[in-house]
């Protein structure tokens, strides 16, 4: 019956096409997979820039989003599934942190740090692409709880 809403800012939420970030996750998965196999710091640096744009500007301003709008969206029909812009933006921030760690490891000459960081980043991107996995759902509240009191 009654739905009492205590979720703040729900009315001011910016909605985006939910398929954009999912498409971006597919490309991210491929880029990270190649980077993991070839140990390419250059690819990680490029992916780092993409993550930074998604995290600090908007997921809709990322180069992968541009590709989606240019080449994929015109071929899709039917209703546009929308989602809040904040969950994918949070996921881009997590990706950014992994990519910074990987690049830092590479610069410091530690291939172990590079491999582990890229592996985690790839796992998250792959889960997002293949299973629509929501990273923010799993770790945001947990991080808040750990820093509470």
């Amino acid at each position: 019956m009654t739905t009492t809403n205590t979720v703040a800012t729900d009315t001011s939420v910016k909605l985006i096409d939910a398929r954009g970030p999912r498409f971006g996750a597919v490309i991210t998965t491929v880029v990270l997979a190649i980077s993991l196999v070839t140990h390419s710091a250059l690819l990680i640096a490029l992916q780092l820039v993409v993550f930074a744009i998604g995290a600090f500007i908007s997921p809709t301003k990322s180069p992968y989003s541009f590709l989606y709008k240019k080449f994929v969206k015109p071929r899709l029909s039917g209703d546009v599934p929308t989602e809040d812009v904040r969950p994918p933006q949070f996921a881009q921030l997590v990706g950014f942190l992994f990519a910074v760690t990987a690049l830092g490891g590479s610069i410091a000459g530690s291939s172990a740090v590079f491999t582990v960081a890229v592996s985690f980043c790839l796992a998250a991107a792959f889960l997002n692409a293949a299973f629509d996995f929501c990273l923010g759902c799993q770790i945001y509240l947990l991080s808040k709880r750990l820093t509470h009191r």
Partner: protein
Amino acid sequence: MKSLLPLAIVLLLSAAFGFWFNASRGRIKGAKSAHQAAPALTEAELGTSFGSRVTLLQFSSAFCSPCRATRALLADVTADMPDVVHVDMDAESHLDLVNRLNIISTPTTLILNSRGVEVGRAIGAAKRSQVIDALAAIA
């Protein structure tokens, strides 16, 4: 070209996790010994009165797409049920409650009986048929 092994390991583990995760999300699990348990929270903490039969207490957060879908689903399912109350609570601004009720991820939906005692919970996006069955099972 280095080894393909790390890639194979990551994809295999992620895929296994993904299938397990999707299968387990939204499944409603019953609470143990609900008949003698204390209410999960007070009506003051809930911000409204308990439903005369059931209260669906959903915890949501900002960085959570399935929370919106779950909210719409539960609002729709309970729309013509005057004895069921659905409350969508922002987890981040109720961290004490979140700790006490051990909410780990969002969305998590608690099913409370008329006294506010937890009789079940679903972690992850709620599934319509399961919600309808769970609501029907509570007198």
